[in-house]
């Protein structure tokens, strides 16, 4: 048994075993992780009732730091693993956390199909617009024309809008926030966790080591200022889906709940048993 700190927040982490973490100085993933844990505490989600699943990448390292059931799977494969966990234990809260490379590129297919199925879990996509762990290659969310290790003259590809895809693929709840707007981020994660169905929170996060450096955005503080000035609240725009050069933050989509996948699956099992 490990020694408890008698602090619910600290006791949610494997402080003695896994810290210090491997994230670069100024990274936004720590902010996201801490905010997520504060939401778990606020909602009274117990460590025994929670499973956090991740793939591979910087954001996916989060699972290693949490003291609850966690599964660090393969690159892109967090959602299929989470599907199995949710079907085996529909009573459990399942949260997937991963980055833009993990969830939108190699795991992109799983993302749209999990949304289509309305799998009742929450996906937190930490979008820092780059593959950080492997050295700053451009990812499917890197905006067109921006520079990356694999795009020194600018990315010629078009980029994904994570929230737009989530909504189009059938997510029940879609929100966006940033690592600058911590209180707002907490609210968004809280709403997502309370939604019964496939819910997505895109967290725009700073990567000063790679993305920030390639765009000349400066250090973490400057990047946080950039997140602040680039963001606009969803209430203040006419059509959040047509805004091009700002991060529209807030609840972008919240629809009436329909029965989620695990419930439908359980009902099917019950019907089959009756026959």
């Amino acid at each position, binding site marked *: 048994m490990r020694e408890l700190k008698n602090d619910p927040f600290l006791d949610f982490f494997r402080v003695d075993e896994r810290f210090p973490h491997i994230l670069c100085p100024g990274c936004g993933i720590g902010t996201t992780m801490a905010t997520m844990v504060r939401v778990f505490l606020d909602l009274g989600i117990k460590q025994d009732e929670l499973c956090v699943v991740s793939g591979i990448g910087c954001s996916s390292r989060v699972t290693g730091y949490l003291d609850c059931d966690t599964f660090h799977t393969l690159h892109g494969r967090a959602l299929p693993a989470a599907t199995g966990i949710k079907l085996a234990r529909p009573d459990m809260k399942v949260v997937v956390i991963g980055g833009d490379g993990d969830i939108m590129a190699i795991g992109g297919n799983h993302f749209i199909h999990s949304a289509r199925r309305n799998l009742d879990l929450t996906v937190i996509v930490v979008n820092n617009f780059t*593959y950080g762990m492997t050295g700053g290659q451009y990812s499917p969310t890197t905006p067109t024309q921006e520079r990356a*290790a*694999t795009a020194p003259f600018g990315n010629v590809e078009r980029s994904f809008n994570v929230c737009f895809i989530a909504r189009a693929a059938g997510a029940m709840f879609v929100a966006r926030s940033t690592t600058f707007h911590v209180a707002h981020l907490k609210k968004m994660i809280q709403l997502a966790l309370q939604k019964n169905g496939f819910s997505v929170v895109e967290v725009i996060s700073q990567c000063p080591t790679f993305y920030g450096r390639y765009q000349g955005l400066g250090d973490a503080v400057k990047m946080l200022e950039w997140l602040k000035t680039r963001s606009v609240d969803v209430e203040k725009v006419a059509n959040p889906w047509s805004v091009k050069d700002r991060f529209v933050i807030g609840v972008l989509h919240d629809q009436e709940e329909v029965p989620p996948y695990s419930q439908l699956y359980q009902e099917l099992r019950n019907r089959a048993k009756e026959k």
Partner: protein
Amino acid sequence: MILAKTGNEAFAYAMKQINPDVVAAYPITPSTEIVQLFSNYVSDGEVDTEYVPVESEHSAMTACIGAAVCGCRVMTATASQGLALMHEMLFIAAGLRLPIVMAVASRSLSSPLNIHGDHSDSVASRDSGWLQFFCETVQEGYDTLIQAVKIAERANLPALVGIDGFILSHCQERIETLEDQVVRDFLGRRKPAYNLLDWRNPILVGPATLQDYYFEFKRSEIEGMNQVLPIIEEVQAEFGRIAGRKYPVLEEYRCEDAEAVVVLMGSACGTVRVAVDRMRAKGKKVGMVKLRVFRPLVHSLLKKSLVKFKKIGVMDRVDAVNSYGGPLFTEITSVLYDTDERPWVFSYVYGLGGKEFTPEDAEMVLEQVLTGKEDELVTYVGVR
């Protein structure tokens, strides 16, 4: 030119000189740097390559196949899970007889997650029909990658060139390089056996062949692989003439009058050399047989070499989990089965997940093989 380069840098530099038509890749530790550095050559206009950063390794190999079918010279790089994700496409590349060349910075496979060097990724792809080269040094990696392009294109088979992850991929060495033009003259243009884009002669690639032709196609692929060894030797000789460096498919190191030898592949050969020297200095008759080509399996050369020794230790940097010894061990015991001499063969599994393998470990292995006292079939070197 003499340069200081890591394994990844040397591979990227070789790729620049090879100047492939298409490179498609996805980042993965520890091979990311290869294509990362190569992409710099692309953006600096030093190569004519179409560089495609795809969304997964499966797509990377598929894009490579698509380009190779159109007659292009195609390369990629990957490791570990990336190679595992390519698995189904590896068979397609080989079955379509496409000479794609892949640089691999060998790394262990999950689970547990580990980013360090062992041969589980390449060896797991053993039966896919790819030629497989394992290199001892960065220099050998550079030289082999260039040769592999020519070998693959003559054999019409894809080739994988492996350096041990981190041990070589991130370790800087002094290497001697060739001039760009020398490499380009050495390789010439690819002359494809068929070309999908030859619209005057339309062809269908990849149709279903069931009981009628599948077996015959596979048999011809096998025959293609059976005929690779002379091509490798021929290309090595040609390369030796321009570079002055020669790498035998099978190298015997201080094996004259040896009573015991170990057989292995990859970077640990360098470690074993040191151990052999130390033991020879003490008057112990030990040696090393370095295998550079894992596929095709050079059974005739192995047989000819190994029957000379009484005791042989076969060292695998990978375990085939509950097979009868490591993967190279089982190959070598079957090669030696129908010989009259039937040497004693012992299996050693070492260095999984990048576990350090020191000259002292190698001495211990050589000592054990020499005394021939083995209680168990497989010895796991240095495992706690």
